[in-house]
Each structure stands twice: as structure tokens, then as C-alpha cells.
């Protein structure tokens, strides 16, 4: 494995060089919050914070994305022609993405890159993105990544993993894509021989700081319908206001809605994030709504992430442990508690959330 040392004095200069070949995204300060967004020319990513408010999902999968456009103006040379929205001219790089967010794309990929169905828009954006991760040396109190399939030094889904080494970043090159980005930035200085040791020591120290966990070992073996009919859903769902906070902040939620918008003779088709918390999500044309009640929608969200996904793909839960939904749920519904209730179903005599 190759390691590069990036002097922090060369950081801005390198990013400026990379900017010529890449559209850069990274954590940026927006008022009181840190968000993951496109970097303005010359803007440095803010790498001091922990998880950004919104995940890095929108780099590959924007909240609103135009799929195609058209005009029915007979005088327009392109009149009555459906035109695919132009792809971005340059590839993208997510600089300073946290390992959990990078790992989330691998989970989401199962949906957008299935053997039989390919989502061309998601795949195009995903394949055009290089993921430059930053290891989490100071994980937060709601980070439970180590029990959700990744970790503060997880390399899954990354092309480069950076470690903050004081006056420099140590860069572990994981893929050719990663090497190409570092080359575009002009970062070639080979790191000292003990870099591997720095990463493994950092990993051990960071993982030891993770205090939050979820239990998932029994989720696969409990029958789906038993969990579906469990007695705790009403209690879990009571406080839920059915907003989209958890689903929109979640890096692994992938549902969308297709909309046509027309203005005069010009029209677009776009897709927007959708949320299983909204009643409209499942409203049929007939007026029937199979998930017309709040408790059904709340159950769906947790059953999808913690049971249906587990059963369908056999590779853990559809959650990377970033903790955003716990931090920002307006009424404090905590996926760790729900996961525990589900995992211990049939074991605890009293299935109480409180």
C-alpha cells in the first residue's frame, strides 16, 4: 500500500490544482452548521468538524436532479425532442468525506446498481466521483459505525484515506482513482516508512473512543412477520411527527419521486428525494393508502433498514452508524433503541422503549 505525505502548507495549492480537473465537494460552514456541499473556487473544505448536517449523499444523488428536458416550441430547432440533461463536464471529488458516508454509497449501490436494473444517473455520478476520506480521530457520542459495518478508519468505498498528522495529512492510496486525484493535486511526497503503523495506531485509538453500539446479531433469524407484528411499534411511533428529517439526513436512504414540471412550452422531468415518512409516499391513484397510518410508516422505515435489507442482501443493516437521525430527530426517536427492541424481540419479557 502506498502512502503519501501532504504538507498542510501545500494543501490549498494542491486543491487549487485539483480543481482544474475535478468539481470539488467537501464540508463547508453554512451559518452555524457544517454541510457537505460543492466548494466554491478556492474554498478549502472545513475539516475540523465531525459529521456534516446533511450527508455526502447529494454529491452523487442530488435532492433534485433533472433527468431530461424538452420544448414543444415549433420554432426551436430542438422542438419536440427529449434531451437528456447534460452530464457534468468534470468528474467530482468528495474531499474530507467521513468513512461512514463513503461506506453508505456501497449500501445504496445495491439498489441503484442491481444485476437486473441499473440507474444510469446514479451510476454515472457515482463512477465519476473520487472519494477522499478523512479518518475520524474524534468520533461523536452518537457514532456507532463500528457495530454498523464500518468504522472511523474504514476504507470501504474510499479511494484515499487521509489521517490528520498535525502539520500534514498522511494519505493512504486505496485505488487508482485515488492515485489520479493525488497526482492531479501534485501531491507526490512519499510518506515515512512508519505510516502504516500510524494508521493502525490511529484506528485502534479511534475505535476505542466509540461508545455507542447497536445489536444486530439476531435480526436475520427473527421471522419477518413476527417483527412486523411486534407489540412495540405503537410505542415507538407515538411521538413521530412524520417529517422527513431522518430520511433526508440519512446517507443510506435512497427513495425518490419523479416529477414533470412545465412552464410555457418548456418542460423538465426531475427526480426528488422522497420519504417513506410522508403519507403521499404510498398514496395510490385509487385514493387507497396501504400505509395510511403513522405507525405503519414508522415501522416501514425501521423494518426496511433493519430487517428487509438484512434479509435481502445478507450483509448487515442498511445503516452506517453516522448518528444523524439520532441527533436531529425533533422528538428523539433513537434508532439504537429501536434496533435493540427488534434484535431482542422474543427475549425480553417486557418490550418497552423507555
Amino acid at each position, binding site marked *: 500500500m502506498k502512502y503519501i505525505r501532504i504538507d498542510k502548507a501545500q494543501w490549498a495549492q494542491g486543491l487549487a490544482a485539483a480543481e482544474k480537473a475535478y468539481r470539488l465537494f467537501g464540508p463547508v460552514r453554512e451559518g452555524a452548521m457544517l454541510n457537505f456541499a460543492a466548494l466554491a473556487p478556492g474554498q478549502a473544505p472545513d475539516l475540523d468538524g465531525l459529521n456534516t448536517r446533511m450527508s455526502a449523499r447529494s454529491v452523487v444523488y442530488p435532492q*433534485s436532479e433533472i433527468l431530461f428536458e424538452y420544448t414543444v416550441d415549433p420554432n426551436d430547432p430542438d422542438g419536440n425532442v427529449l434531451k437528456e440533461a447534460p452530464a457534468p463536464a468534470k468528474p467530482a471529488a468528495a474531499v474530507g468525506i467521513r468513512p461512514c458516508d463513503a461506506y453508505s454509497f456501497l449500501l445504496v449501490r445495491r439498489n441503484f446498481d442491481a444485476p437486473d436494473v441499473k440507474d444510469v444517473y446514479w451510476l454515472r455520478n457515482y463512477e465519476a466521483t473520487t472519494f477522499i476520506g478523512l479518518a475520524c480521530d474524534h468520533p461523536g457520542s452518537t457514532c456507532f459505525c463500528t457495530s454498523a459495518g464500518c468504522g472511523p478508519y474504514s476504507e470501504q468505498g474510499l479511494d484515499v484515506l487521509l489521517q490528520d498528522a498535525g502539520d500534514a495529512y498522511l494519505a493512504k492510496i486505496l485505488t487508482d482513482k485515488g492515485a489520479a486525484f493525488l497526482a492531479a493535486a501534485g501531491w507526490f511526497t512519499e510518506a515515512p516508512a512508519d505510516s502504516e503503523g500510524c494508521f493502525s495506531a490511529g484506528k485502534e485509538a479511534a475505535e476505542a473512543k466509540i461508545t455507542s453500539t447497536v445489536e444486530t446479531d439476531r435480526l436475520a433469524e427473527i421471522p419477518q412477520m413476527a417483527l412486523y407484528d411486534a407489540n412495540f411499534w405503537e410505542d415507538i411511533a407515538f411521538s413521530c*411527527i*412524520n*417529517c422527513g428529517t431522518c430520511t433526508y439526513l440519512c446517507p443510506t436512504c435512497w427513495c425518490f*419521486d419523479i416529477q414533470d414540471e412545465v412552464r410555457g412550452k418548456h418542460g423538465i422531468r426531475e427526480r426528488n428525494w422522497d*420519504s417513506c415518512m410522508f403519507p403521499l409516499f404510498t398514496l395510490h391513484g385509487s385514493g387507497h393508502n396501504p400505509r395510511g397510518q403513522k405507525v405503519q410508516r414508522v415501522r416501514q422505515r425501521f423494518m426496511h433498514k433493519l430487517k428487509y435489507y438484512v434479509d435481502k442482501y445478507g450483509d448487515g443493516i442498511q445503516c452506517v452508524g453516522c448518528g444523524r437521525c439520532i441527533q436531529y430527530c*425533533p*422528538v428523539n*426517536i433513537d434508532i439504537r433503541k429501536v434496533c435493540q427492541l427488534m434484535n431482542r424481540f422474543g427475549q425480553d419479557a417486557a418490550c418497552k422503549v*423507555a
Partner: protein
Amino acid sequence: MIAYTDKIRDIARRLLKDCRVETVIGFRNGSMPMMNEPCFIKNVDDVDHLIWDGNCGINLANYLTNRTDKIAVVAKGCDSRNIVTHIIENKIKREQLVIIGVPCKGMLDKRRIKAMAPGEVTRVVEDGESVRVCGAGFEKTYPRKDMLQANCAVCIHRNPVIYDELVADPVPEQQNVDRYEDVRAIEAMSAEEKWTYFENLLAPCIRCYACRNACPLCYCPTCFVDESTPQWVGKSQNPVDVRTFHFLRAYHCAGRCTDCGSCERACPMGINMRVFTKKLEKEAFEQWGWEAGLSLDQRPPLDTYRPDDPQDFMK
């Protein structure tokens, strides 16, 4: 606050034991600092889950809409005013309710406390008139009155206006409060400045609708943004649609909003959309001397007509 909690539990226990209600709606301890979770209690054995402190900012009137059972509900000043509004608007019947009134001392501003802390806040302890904020390697104490949500800092109806039980003696209402300093600052702006101000204010909105869904006033079976036949508002992040949602929602709350602050508290992006509803609250007060939810016997100004209504807006 411990005294409040004990009293709430006592009342809840008595009401459930005497079968006066089927359900008690209140708060239980949250898993995060400065967060409690609305909950329902049906069983006498569970009443000890109920708690009260400065983190009960979610408006529980929101959990009463269209219920058919007999309910006891814990209500601070603003909640009680929204219960009044709910009764007036036929969303619940007075006879269904046993209102456990809580004289409120204001709710803590979780966002400000987090922003002021030098690191991640892991514990917040209320101790009478002060608040202790703790995290890894720091512990800071602030006067409680300086850490209140913005709406609580200018609240003039802390005591429940309607109740069947009161958990403590009424607290003194805040005097000489300037409720509309923020609104006047925006009113004084030029049209261009206002435009920029609103544009920036709403830029972080992700249309999760937490503000709408946390609001006890927003109970329409189908919200105008969710209408699909025909569709009234676009669904994307187009700023025109985002603004349409916020502006129109505020108008729907005109003369009804109690400034409980649930909308702002619920927003995951920290948007102060209260400036819209407060502007309309100010209008209703200045035009008709109206404050929402103070009386069961008076119809709200926007569903009554009086020949002597001021018509100054007609030019």
C-alpha cells in the same frame, strides 16, 4: 423541575387509577441531552416514565388532533393555548380532556447551548436558576434565563390558560416584554433587503416539513404542498417552491399561532421560520387586539366578520 415531575406522576396515577382517562400524554426522558420524547401512558405502572424539565419544547396539542379517547395531557402555557384553538376548531372536545397544567419557566434553547459549547455537549443539568453544560473536558454554568428559546424569552403567557389540574402555583408572567423587536427589524428593511433576508433564511430548507408537522395548527388532511390533483406547488428544491411553502403555511397560521416555537425547535437545519408567523401575530394583535388561544368563548378574527373591522389595508 423534580417537584413538577412528581406532581405530574401523582396526577397521572390518580387519573388512570380512577379511570377518568384512558391515556396520559406527556414526556419521557430522551436519549440525547436537551431532548425529551412525547409519550403516552395507559398503565398506572408506567406513570414513572413521565418527566418534566426545560426540554419539553414540543407542543403536545399536536398529539390530540382528532383523537376520540379520553385523554389527560400535560400542557404548558403555549400548549394550553393551542388546546383552546384545537377545541375552537373542533379538533378535540373539551369533555375528552383532563388538562394537567404546567406553569412554564421557559424551554432551553438546545441549538444555542450546543453552538456555545467548546465541544460536543453530552449532559445538561438544570439547577434552579442555572444550567450546567457538560462535555468531554469542559463544564460551564450559565444563568438559565439567558439560555431560553427565543420564543420563551419573549413569552407573556407562561401559565396555562385552561386546565383541570395545576402542578404548581402559577409563575409570574414576564412584564415589559418587547415581543416584536425581530419583526420590526425586518419591517424596517427595504424590499431588496427583505428579499435577500428571506432568501438566506430559507436557503438551508430541505423541505422535510418538520416545522409543519410539529405544528398543532397544521392538521389539514392534505396539506396544499401535498395536493397532487391538481398539483399546486412543485416538489423540488426550486427556491420559488420552497418559499411558497413557508409563506403560505405562515398565512394559514395567521391569528392562530401561539408562538410555541415547536416549528423552529423541530427544524433540523435551524431555520427561524417563526419570523413569518410572528409578523402575522403582530398584525392580528395590532388590528384586532387578538392573541390566539386565550379564550374558548371568542371566535378567532379570521373566521368572524364585524362591520366595524378596520379596513385600512384597502387602499
